[in-house]
């Protein structure tokens, strides 16, 4: 929703130019250690994101119970030793449901970012490499995408495609194509000017080889940084849409729909909304922290 958070552009040309002298492995590790030691928040973020990813790919490792199986006698219990996040109106353990919900929510997020990355990246690459009227036309199109608020764009796509996790993911992805196209284009324009592209051209390398072997790998850095940032935004967008009820149908534990379910019991059971929401917020916060570390902070800390 807040695409336009001001981000300091990286002060250095890019990750490719960070270490001109080949550092030994030991030096690199030492540098990493120095970098992390002064940033405890970053360490916590990395560990937390690792846990969330584990939850997404192997939920059983963190919460072995069945997320859809409840013990009616234990219904609506407040968080405690037996149930860390409490239980819901069917006696299902909220912690288990949040852990298993990570799978659906993160899958949707990954699809969304992948769609935005591939489509936006191709548009930007084409616009920056071909230039001329192709560039002009594509960038006008991107301007139009920026004029439509992302949520409304996603809702229009859901109207056309229908409900479901995959459709929500595609809708979120298409709505964030524009920022990838812009970054990719500016990177491509920058790299086109470089000496190695000129050299590749002068020895008669074909254009698609130049594109794949020289432009694409060197443009990757900033695009990856953006992808990490967009990952956080996509988690929020996907959970909003699933909160509104456009995601997976009820028994499935998606993060947004867990909160929507808990809403009906808010007056008596605060934890039903609070816990899944805190999980979303902590994930997004951690992802954003990592994206900030990748975006120049690492390169600046020499």
């Amino acid at each position: 929703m807040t695409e336009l958070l001001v981000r300091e552009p990286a002060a250095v040309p890019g990750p490719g130019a960070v270490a001109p002298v080949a550092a030994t492995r030991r030096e690199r590790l030492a540098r990493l250690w120095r970098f992390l030691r002064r940033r405890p928040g970053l360490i916590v973020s990395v560990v937390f994101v690792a846990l969330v990813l584990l939850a997404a790919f192997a939920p059983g490792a963190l919460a072995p119970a069945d997320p859809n199986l409840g013990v009616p006698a234990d219904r609506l219990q407040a968080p405690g030793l037996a149930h860390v996040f409490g239980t819901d109106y069917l006696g299902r353990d909220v912690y288990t449901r949040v852990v298993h919900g990570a799978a659906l929510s993160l899958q949707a997020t990954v699809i969304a970012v992948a769609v935005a990355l591939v489509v936006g990246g191709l548009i930007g690459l084409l616009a920056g490499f071909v230039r001329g009227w192709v560039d002009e036309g594509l960038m006008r199109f991107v301007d139009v995408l920026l004029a439509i608020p992302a949520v409304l764009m996603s809702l229009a796509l859901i109207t056309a495609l229908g409900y479901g996790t995959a459709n929500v993911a595609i809708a979120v992805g298409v709505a964030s194509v524009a920022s990838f196209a812009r970054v990719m284009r500016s990177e491509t324009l920058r790299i086109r000017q470089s000496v190695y592209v000129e050299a590749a051209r002068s020895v008669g390398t074909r254009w698609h080889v130049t594109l794949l072997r020289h432009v694409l790998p060197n443009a990757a850095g900033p695009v990856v940084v953006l992808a990490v940032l967009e990952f956080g935004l996509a988690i929020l967008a996907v959970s909003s849409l699933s909160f509104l009820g456009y995601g997976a149908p009820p028994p499935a534990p998606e993060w947004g729909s867990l909160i929507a379910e808990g809403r009906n019991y808010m007056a008596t059971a605060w934890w039903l909304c609070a816990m899944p929401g805190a999980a979303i917020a902590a994930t997004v916060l951690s992802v954003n922290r990592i994206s900030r570390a990748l975006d120049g902070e690492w390169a600046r800390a020499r």
Partner: protein
Amino acid sequence: MSPMARYLLRRAGMAVGVLWAAFTVSFVVLYLLPGDPVATMASGGLDGEPLTPEQLDALRARYGLDQPLIVQYGHRLWGALHGDFGASIQNGQDVRGAIMEALPPTIQISLAGLAFAIVVGGTVALVATYTRAHWLRQVLMGLPSLAVSMPVFWVGLMLVQVFSFGLGLLPSVGANGPQALILPAITLGLPTGALVAQVLAKSLSQALDEPYVATARAKGVGRVDIHLRHALRNAALPALTVLGYVVGNLLAGAVVVETVFTRPGLGRLTVSAVGVQDIPLVQGIVVFAAAVFVVVNLLVDLVYPLLDPRIATGAAA
């Protein structure tokens, strides 16, 4: 024609172009992708009785959905140029009328949210750049990233939890009276406030490095005066440029906030339209949102030279 007039004309022409393209993009998305609104409507039938194929065809003919797409496109574009976005499939209501009817409550919470965002975001930025306490600055500048990491609907629900159910201070739902406006406005304004805080803090700290601040300091002007009278006045201008995005954000945020607080408005209208695949209504709302974005940005561009004379001379040169 003076260069200024030419600039204005070009800018207005671009705005119209973006609007046309937004109409076309939303048409392509809504009409070209698979999905049959008439069949959806019939399956969710009012009295449960399935419609016969003849009835379906009659409905399609009534909404012009039986014609070739290019004809439908021309027809709808012609209508849109006259402010006519067709009739809602849900209840046959005129789309423009439905949007206009839903608009006032949304404008209300948007303005309240914007006010909250400017006051809170502005305060955070001012204090963070003014304070000499390192820890306070760190804490304050951490707030925006915290605010944008929390899902908007969750913030709303937590506010309801604390202030309505916990403390019993404010109503949790509805749109009666000014008290009912407070929680939705905070929820809606929070991400925008984060944006305002970040943009303003950045331009404030840039302004504080300018030579005129050094001059003022040398003259013995107090810190508060420098901050508010010299730096803020210059730093507020760049913050104005994000207004277009902010308005788009508020409009989009209304979708979630109005659902959380069960308030009437454009957001709720959108959610219900998506729920029943009311394509004309969804398209009308998308184009309306794009129009708001374009108009606000146009206004910002036009007002900017008036506020910052340097831009005006730049455009005339």
